[in-house]
Every structure is written in structure tokens, then in C-alpha cells.
């Protein structure tokens, strides 16, 4: 159990918690979508300070965690080629593929480089014209503008030896898929403010209305999360289902117009598989026809690689909120951050890694379906 004086403003935290306790009469299951929010909730023990009737479900908001095994295997197949310099954020190097990871390839002499920006990969491409340089472009709406801009620059500058392995996913279709699932237990959502700062909030009121579910946009600081929970609980108790913005900084309804124009030019919506969840229609982006030439999947002919997920790892159930990490038999035994079976144990934003790091073995078990309200 954490103590309130560990919060940046204990008085305000106490005030918000008092309001949440006073307002709560029913049992409510609320999903935080963002991996940063999950980390914050577990690190600060927010879920343990809430009324017994409120359960936090950790959603699929970790970009490393939802990248399908199949895409990891495609990355590995490309990175193994002697003519390739494979560039990625550091988080992806330890994500296990079917038989190895990017670190293993690097240790065997493969040219795998950790970069800070896709623009760094573009620079590597210009400095190494005799090599193929590939950047691993994963993530949600937040990471897509930088990748889009880099491909735009590759085209504008004429850098033929650069390409992007794309596995971009979108939050609103995932919320719809979660709500459509027969095993869905979610009654309210905390959405991520920094996602909305790119795309705006346009898609959310329709989702709140269609699924009669409150959606509250908030940040990932502990006080942001408590305020988001407070507003969600008030909606649930009052039978409302609206989009509310509780983010500390203003989220313009239209998002970032420059980034949106770039995204519309470079990417087009496509069906995407989510690790542990499966195919969600219209839930991702791929390069548009005008930029298909820079698509690594086509360039290296890895489209034929198909991989099934691990039979032992239950991260799919964790990502859907059907299982808490420590309820998995492999948690902390066969599966640790040093030897992860699944991506939720790899990334600091993954629910399994957060539970492991903060020794959260005493969290109540997941409620059965139908016990939410």
C-alpha cells in the first residue's frame, strides 16, 4: 500500500480520493488505455487507494506490447540480412520473436542500431548509400507524425536506400473492439491526453455515445489520473456517458493540424493485428500509394511471414483486462523482465513489467465477466 504523502500534492490527492469515495455506490470497472497511466497507477498504488467497488483494468496502451509477434519476426528477418542497417528504439531490441530477438542478431554481428529519432535513421541512410537502412516504425497516433515526416523527407530528398517497417495502431478502433468483445467488462475509459494532442478528440464522443461508456481524457501524473477517475465515476453513478477532457494542458479538439495533414498524406488506414488481441478492422496505418516505395515489408518481401503467438504467454488476456499479470502461471517464474516471454514484460509501460517491478502480488484477482456493475 502506498501513502498519500508520496504524491506531489498530498492534500489535493486526499481531496480527490475523498470525492471518489463519497461518489461511489456501485461496482465499476474502468480501463486506462495508456501504458504510462498503467505504470503510474501501479507505481503509486492508486488502485489500492480507490474504493473497493472500483477496479482498474490495464488496457492495450503500450506500443511495444501490442506489436504482433509476426511483425517482430519480420523485423528479425530483415535485420539479419548482411546488406541491412536496422534502426530502432531501444525498447524493441529485447522483445522476443519466435526464436530470437534483435539483441541476439546484434551480438552475432548484425548491424542493429538504437536511434533517438527516425531522422537519425534517415541520416544513417544518406551516409551509407551502399546499405539498406530500415527504421522500425511502431506505436500509436503519437509516434506516427515523426515517422510520416521522415518518409516524406526521404521522398523529398531522394533517399532510395531508406525504408520504414510500419506497424502503427490507432486508439479509437481498439476502444470499439474492446467494447464489442463478448467478454468485455469495461464500463468507463481513461483516454490519453497526449494521443489527443495529435489527433484531437473528434472520434471519442461518437464512441461514448455508441457504447454508452464514459470516456475521460487525462494525463498520466497521479493527480491527473485521480481526477480522470473522479470524473468517470461521477458519470457512471449519474448514468451519463460523455467525452470529458480532464487533461491538465489544453487538448485542441482538432489536434495538431500540421501533423494530421502529414499523416493523411503519408499513411492510409488499414486493418491491423494487435498482439494478444488479434485483427481489428481499420485499426492501423500503412504507407499510402504515394509512399509505398519506402515500405520495408514490400522491399524485403517479408509479407509471407506468418507467426502464431506463444501458447504459454497470456499477455493477450492481460491486454484485454481479462487477467491480472500475477494471475499468469509464468509470471515471475519463466517470465521476468530479464527473460520475457511476452512484450508486456519487456516494456516499462507493460502491465506485467509494472507488476513485477513494484512487487504487486497482492492485487485482488480479476472479477468474472458480468460482475462489473
Amino acid at each position, binding site marked *: 500500500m502506498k501513502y498519500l504523502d508520496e504524491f*506531489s500534492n498530498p492534500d489535493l490527492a486526499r481531496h480527490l480520493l475523498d470525492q471518489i469515495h463519497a461518489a461511489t455506490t456501485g461496482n465499476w470497472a474502468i480501463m486506462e*488505455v*495508456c*501504458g*504510462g497511466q498503467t*505504470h*503510474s497507477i501501479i*507505481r503509486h498504488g492508486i488502485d489500492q487507494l480507490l474504493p473497493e467497488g472500483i477496479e482498474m483494468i490495464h488496457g492495450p*496502451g*503500450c*506500443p*511495444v506490447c501490442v506489436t504482433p509477434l509476426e511483425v517482430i519476426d519480420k523485423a528479425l528477418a530483415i535485420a539479419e540480412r548482411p546488406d541491412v542497417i536496422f534502426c530502432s*528504439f*531501444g*525498447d524493441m531490441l529485447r522483445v522476443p520473436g519466435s526464436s530470437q530477438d534483435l539483441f541476439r542478431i546484434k551480438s552475432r554481428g548484425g548491424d542493429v542500431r*538504437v536511434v*533517438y*529519432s*527516425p*531522422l*537519425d535513421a534517415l541520416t544513417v541512410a544518406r551516409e551509407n548509400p551502399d546499405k539498406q537502412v530500415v527504421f522500425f516504425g*511502431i*506505436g*500509436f*497516433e*503519437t*509516434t506516427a*507524425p*515523426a*515517422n510520416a*515526416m521522415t518518409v516524406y523527407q526521404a521522398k523529398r530528398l531522394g533517399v532510395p536506400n531508406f525504408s520504414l517497417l510500419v506497424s502503427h495502431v490507432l*486508439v479509437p478502433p481498439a476502444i470499439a473492439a474492446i467494447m464489442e468483445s463478448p467478454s468485455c467488462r469495461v464500463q468507463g475509459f481513461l483516454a*490519453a491526453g*497526449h*494521443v489527443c*494532442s*495529435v489527433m484531437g478528440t473528434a472520434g471519442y464522443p461518437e464512441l461514448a455515445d455508441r457504447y454508452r461508456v464514459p470516456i475521460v481524457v487525462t*494525463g*498520466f*501524473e497521479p493527480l491527473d489520473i485521480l481526477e480522470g477517475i473522479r470524473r468517470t465515476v461521477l458519470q457512471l453513478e449519474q448514468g451519463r456517458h460523455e467525452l470529458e477532457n480532464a487533461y*491538465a*494542458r489544453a487538448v485542441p479538439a482538432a489536434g*495538431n*493540424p*500540421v*501533423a494530421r495533414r*502529414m499523416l493523411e498524406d503519408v499513411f492510409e488506414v488499414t486493418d491491423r493485428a494487435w498482439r494478444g488481441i488479434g485483427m481489428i478492422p481499420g485499426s492501423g496505418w500503412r504507407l499510402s500509394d504515394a509512399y509505398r516505395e519506402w515500405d520495408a515489408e514490400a522491399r524485403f518481401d517479408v509479407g509471407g511471414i506468418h507467426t502464431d503467438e506463444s501458447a504459454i504467454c497470456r499477455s493477450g488476456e492481460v491486454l484485454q483486462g481479462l487477467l491480472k499479470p500475477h494471475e499468469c502461471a509464468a509470471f515471475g517464474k519463466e517470465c521476468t523482465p530479464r527473460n520475457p516471454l511476452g512484450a508486456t514484460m519487456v516494456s*516499462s*509501460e507493460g502491465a506485467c513489467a509494472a507488476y513485477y*517491478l513494484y512487487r504487486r502480488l497482492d492485487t485482488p484477482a480479476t472479477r468474472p465477466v458480468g460482475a462489473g456493475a
Partner: protein
Amino acid sequence: MCLGIPGRVVGMVPGFGDQLALVEVEGAARKVNIGLLDEAPAPGQWVLIHMGFAVETTDAAGAETAMSGLEMMGRPRDDAVLDHPGPGP
């Protein structure tokens, strides 16, 4: 992977079509692409940098919030500057 790293604009880098600004991030000068902003930020303006791009303008309070967020995620400031694009989404 989704959060911005705060920095303060020093000035534009000549010769890159007004696309690159020099930004001070925790005492280190970085070249940052400003092509995703509506207009070029003035010297002294705080920006949030994501994957090498300035994605939002902000103020000193917003910059401190962003940096404390990165620390909350368990990433020392120097590491955040050098290695990580930040948590997400």
C-alpha cells in the same frame, strides 16, 4: 514512447530550409526538426520534442510537468535525453 521531452529554443540552424532549430535540452544542445509546428518557434520558447521533432509549444510549467513525467516513468533525465523517445500512448 509517446511523451515529449521538453527543451528551450536557442535559435534556427541555418541551411536546412528553416526546418531545424537548435534546442537546449537539460544543458545539451540538440538539433530538432520544427516541421510539425504551425510556425517557427522564437528563441526562448519551450517546446516538447518527440522522436527528434518539436510537436508542441509549451511554457516553463508544461516543461517541468513533462520532465517530471519522464522521471516518474523511471528514466533519469540524462537517459531521457540521450536514449528514449518517452513513454506512451
